[in-house]
């Protein structure tokens, strides 16, 4: 090869390396940016009067006088819509039977779309589910529902070789010549007056419990459950891990037993997380009977086993990083080995040990698979501290899965899902960030 080609190869080799790091950073960005962008939308959004009605009725929040004046002004505009509906119903009665049946079907679609937009119409029975008691609480959703009202969606399946294409037909044309035709332009023009959108900072998203399986309300039960599980796991795993690390670094003698224990540690670190869940179910719940069925304590114990190897490894590294001189100085002053460990080495290694602990805390908070069979329920209210031994809890990680994959209206509550993911990612990344900062300070300190 000539020298030019070798140079090109060298450069491109560097480019590939840097490129792959850039791709990793991009991957992080691509995953995090939509989560952050849409997640913030769960807390800051353009809320409608329906949102304020819901807040007042479900959480007793908001100024009732101001709210009733708002409701009155929105009702003034809604009244015309309702009048048009009753007018059309009267018109329906006068039609020929076959024409009436045709319009009846279309009309009930219009009513459903209007109910989704504005809430129950006059004359409707009181809805059983809270989700049907209010119209659209978010303005961007209301605009989607307005589109549903104005246009009927149809599927074009003429070409059997490709997937069907969706296309839209204006409903107003369908009602041409009847009194209802006026409804569509009217709603389109006056939607803002009917819903009164205004910028909303819904801090309750963090502190409220959910209403009607997350259609409204916040995610406090999930956040609390995540904290219970993660901190419970730390309570078990942290002391055990530090003690085991002290044994490995200070007392273990090289030999078969020691290498076996180390292998056990790395095996434990490599066990797939779902297997921890199965073990938790088979051991803690079915055999040890720590609780009747799923409970926070069973989940915390399972998570504790999962994060134990990480804590041991981090604590070992932190203890080994303590300069030898510390130990020698302490021993030369006449203190015993145990005394040296307790008063000199552990305090010096503490920041490093804490770093490992904080990272493990984040891991325990984010992990889903071990708690599926041991601790998590999909719907539930926040539990008290006394219930951790007997009752399961909703948790962020599990409920993200549940809302995104198993909820009956998953696509309608995307903002709640994004908000949950953002909450979880924020908790985990903040923990990790603090660990990174902590470690940077330690390495600075050790360098002197």
């Amino acid at each position, binding site marked *: *090869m000539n020298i030019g*080609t070798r140079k*090109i190869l060298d450069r491109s*080799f*560097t480019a590939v*390396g*840097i490129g*792959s*790091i850039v791709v*990793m*950073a991009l*991957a*992080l960005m691509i*995953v995090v940016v*939509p*989560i952050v962008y849409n997640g913030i939308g769960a807390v800051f959004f353009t809320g409608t009067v329906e949102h304020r009605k819901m807040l007042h009725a479900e959480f007793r929040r908001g100024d009732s006088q101001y709210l009733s004046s708002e409701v009155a002004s929105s009702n003034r505009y809604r009244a015309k819509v309702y009048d048009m509906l009753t007018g059309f119903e009267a018109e329906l009665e006068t039609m020929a039977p076959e024409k009436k049946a045709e319009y009846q079907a279309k009309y009930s679609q219009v009513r459903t779309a209007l109910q989704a937009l504005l809430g129950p119409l006059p004359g409707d029975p009181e809805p059983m589910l809270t989700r049907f008691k209010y119209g659209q609480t978010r303005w961007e959703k209301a605009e989607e529902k307005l589109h549903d009202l104005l246009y009927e969606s149809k599927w074009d399946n003429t070409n059997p070789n490709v*997937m069907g294409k969706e296309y839209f037909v204006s409903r107003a044309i369908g009602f041409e010549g009847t009194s209802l035709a006026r409804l569509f332009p009217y709603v389109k023009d006056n939607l803002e007056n009917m819903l009164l959108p205004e910028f909303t900072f819904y801090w309750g998203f963090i502190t409220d419990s959910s209403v009607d399986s997350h259609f409204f309300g916040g995610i406090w039960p999930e956040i609390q459950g995540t904290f219970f599980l993660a901190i419970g796991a730390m309570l078990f795993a942290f002391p*055990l891990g530090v*003690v*085991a690390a002290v*044994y490995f670094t200070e007392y273990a003698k090289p030999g078969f037993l020691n290498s076996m*224990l180390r292998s*056990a*540690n*790395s*095996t*434990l*670190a*490599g*066990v*797939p997380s*779902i*297997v921890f869940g*199965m073990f938790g*179910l*088979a*051991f803690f719940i079915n*055999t040890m009977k720590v609780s009747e069925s799923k409970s926070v304590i069973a989940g915390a114990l399972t998570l504790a086993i999962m994060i*134990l*190897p990480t804590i*041991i490894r981090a604590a070992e590294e932190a203890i080994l990083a303590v300069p030898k001189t510390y130990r020698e100085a302490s*021993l030369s002053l006449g203190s*015993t080995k145990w005394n040296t460990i307790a008063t000199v080495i552990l305090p010096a290694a503490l920041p490093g040990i804490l770093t490992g602990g904080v990272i493990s805390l984040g*891991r325990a908070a*984010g992990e*889903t*698979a071990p708690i599926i069979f041991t601790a998590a329920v999909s719907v539930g209210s926040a539990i008290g501290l006394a219930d951790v031994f007997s009752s399961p809890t909703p948790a962020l*990680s*599990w409920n*993200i*899965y549940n809302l*995104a*994959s198993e909820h009956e209206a998953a696509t309608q509550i995307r903002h709640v*899902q994004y908000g949950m*993911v953002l909450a*979880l990612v924020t908790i*985990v*990344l903040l923990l*990790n960030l603090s660990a*990174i900062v902590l470690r940077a300070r330690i390495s600075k300190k050790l360098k002197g």
Partner: protein
Amino acid sequence: MADESVGERNRSNAFVVTARKRTLQKVAKTAGEGMLFSVAFFVAVIVLFIFYFVARDAIPFFQIRGFSEFFTSTNWYPADEPGEFGALAIIYGSLMVTLGSAMIAVPMGVAAAICLSDILPFSIRQYAKPVIEMLAAIPSVAFGFFALVVLAPLMQDHGGPMLMWGWWILVSPFLLLSVIVIADLLTANIKDEKRRQQRHWMLLIALGLFSIFLLFKVGSVLNGIQILTGTNALNVSIILSFMALPTIVSVSEDALQAVGRDIREGSYALGATRAETIIKTILPAASSGILAAVILGIMRALGETMVVWMASGNSSHIPEPWFNYLEAIRTLTATIAGDMGEADQVTGSARFHVLFAMGLLLLIISFISNLVSERIVVRQRKILSGQ
């Protein structure tokens, strides 16, 4: 430590060591060490317990149904009466996403590790490492959510163009590079400088035209592909590779760092460029450590649950043809997670125990690969430090 000779003047009781006190100290020391040991031993006990309790519930399945159906049949109808428990398609799905993610994550991870250990200056490395740690820290369910809610619809709606752009961006630089290298290699033996130059240019143009043709031909084929479902093996492989990357990068960076400076400097002294040094000397020296990193990384992909459960489509069949990554698949972990809720009601049935059989399979694979990677690392350390 405090021995007999205590000065006459400060004869306080604290420093007097009587025989009784010494025995007490000894007992306390032994007891303390025993306690420490028992805590460390606890980890080994847990590992044994995990094996025991998963196997205890897995063995009844093989007693009821035998081995052959589980490993050879693709009929997975556990809820039927009587049920069918052929897990071949599920095992195949697991292997497929593991392999797919390894194909993305291994080259990228090793390249990034080389870059971190040998190419980037320290100041930039400082910022690159937290990025990798953040990627490792993001919870798997967040990745799964991203795969399901963002990536899957994108793939379904714009699958063809995405594949085409991916092909162009990823392949064109490498194709360009290989054209240059091949042209150079083929003309290297020609002695006459003028003729060599001529040949060189001709080859470059011919190969260049051919590669442009290849790029566009394959690109247009890819552009025409319509992805029927966004929740497929490719989606999962991409996301799993993100999750395996941090492990691969950090472990193989350790392996590369363990290769001494003298080897690098020797290679530079012989006139090798940096790329040649890395490829021909450092990578072979660190190869076993990198292998260990790869094993650990793909184990992470094999054992991952949430992403595959949410975004793999969970359809238990072997894709048609077998390498079709654009079809929905089902994996072992997702099957365990998804079916346990229903099977839990029928504890004792084959339907319940088959899930533990899958767990045992995962456990054994992870145990073996862990042992292997550990042996490899120990051996590399011995070789590098011994010579």
